[in-house]
């Protein structure tokens, strides 16, 4: 027996997480359905056939954030209910490897949701063409997803140890995600404005990258304490 390498442990945990989702197919369909339904509700609620600029950006990102909350609440459910936490804690594996695996799992979920949600949004609500905005949008999505994944993995670990995890997850993650929302919505708005397509404010992207990095460090520092008794 040798000390397990962190990369090998992360790969094993991620593989198990994805297998669990592919076998049960519980989270992804819910996220897809939620996103598309939200767009339909916005379509009727705002009484607009198409949206652009700040409004379009806000609708897209609020929908993606709320869809992410669905999976953040379930991220550690199988571990908590089926003893996966204890199994992991009994091993000599580095505790941080579970955090990394959960961040990667959330990134996978978010990418899979966006594959459906972004085209659906373009089809149902977006006024300018998606094709023009897509290259810039992919960059904003990547940075935004990273922020959501890091915060979600940390908050999920905190909430799962409590009785009121269904409430605590959204109550903790939504306020922490406000700065992410400010940055991604601000960075996406020019992409959805037909007059200024492509001009992303770099300041917002740098702020978002810094927020992601700072939260990543905080998550890494706190994660051990969350798992220990």
């Amino acid at each position, binding site marked *: 027996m*040798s000390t397990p390498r962190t990369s090998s442990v992360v790969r094993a945990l991620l593989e198990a997480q994805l297998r*669990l989702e592919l076998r049960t197919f519980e989270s992804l369909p819910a996220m897809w359905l939620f996103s598309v339904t939200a767009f339909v509700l916005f379509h009727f609620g705002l009484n607009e056939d198409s949206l652009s600029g700040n409004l379009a950006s806000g609708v897209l990102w609020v929908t993606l954030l709320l869809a992410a909350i669905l999976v953040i609440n379930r991220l550690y459910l*199988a571990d908590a209910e089926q003893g996966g936490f*204890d199994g992991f*804690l009994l091993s000599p*594996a580095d505790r941080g490897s579970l955090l990394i695996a959960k961040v990667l799992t959330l990134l996978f979920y978010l990418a899979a949701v966006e594959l459906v949600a972004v085209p659906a949004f373009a089809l149902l609500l977006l006024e300018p063409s998606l094709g023009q905005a897509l290259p810039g949008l992919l960059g904003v999505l990547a940075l935004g997803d990273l922020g959501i994944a890091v915060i979600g993995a940390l908050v999920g670990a905190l909430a799962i140890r409590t009785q009121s995890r269904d409430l605590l997850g959204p109550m903790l993650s939504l306020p922490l995600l406000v700065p992410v929302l400010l940055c991604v919505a601000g960075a996406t708005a020019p992409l959805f404005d037909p007059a200024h397509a492509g001009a992303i404010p770099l300041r917002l992207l740098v702020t978002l990258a810094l927020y992601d990095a700072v939260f990543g460090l905080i998550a890494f520092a706190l994660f051990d304490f969350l798992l220990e*008794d």
Partner: protein
Amino acid sequence: MTALSLRGVTRRYGERTALAAVTLTLPAGQTLAVLGPNGAGKSTLLRVLATLLAPHAGKLEVLGHPLPQESWAVRGKIGLLGHEPMLYRELTARENLRLHAKLHGVRLERVGELLALVALERRADEPLRTLSRGLVQRVAVCRTLLHEPELLLLDEPRANLDPAACEIVEPLIGRASGKTRVLVSHDPARALLEADLVLGLARGRTAFLDAPAQLDPQGVAELYR
């Protein structure tokens, strides 16, 4: 060498004391049987020894390492077989064991070897939720032994196992394994046969601690009244 050394180990859940000032020493290679009614603190004791719960008072050394300060050094040397199998229901036996093998840095061939030892090769690629409790318990035995632990913490290890399955796992987790064992049991007669030292717990407190031959059968029976 001393495998376990507890001096006044106490663990509370809020106001309730689950384990109160337990003191004992167990040499390596011996078996400690822990007896007591439901809620006596047996499972709490196992979780404290497994580093999953930290003691609130007292001094505790497992395999020569003080806990919780050196928990990291003990993990990987202990195998806990508890009420929960610690396995994912949607994964197969093989997938679960491969995951744990990677968590412990164990070569993957060991998974196949253990599955063969517990006669589970034929069902190893079926999701756990389709297996009976007895078969899941056999997989849990494999999970406990994957990393060849020095100390086995066994909470009702034969639960759900039929006599044939008990015979299969006996050389792995029984006295014949030669490992240091802490055995929680609701079957005093069997536990006394297996143990070198017997700890009786009642409401978290030590009711008796002695070699099986020195124990008063009346005292053991009273523990459950």
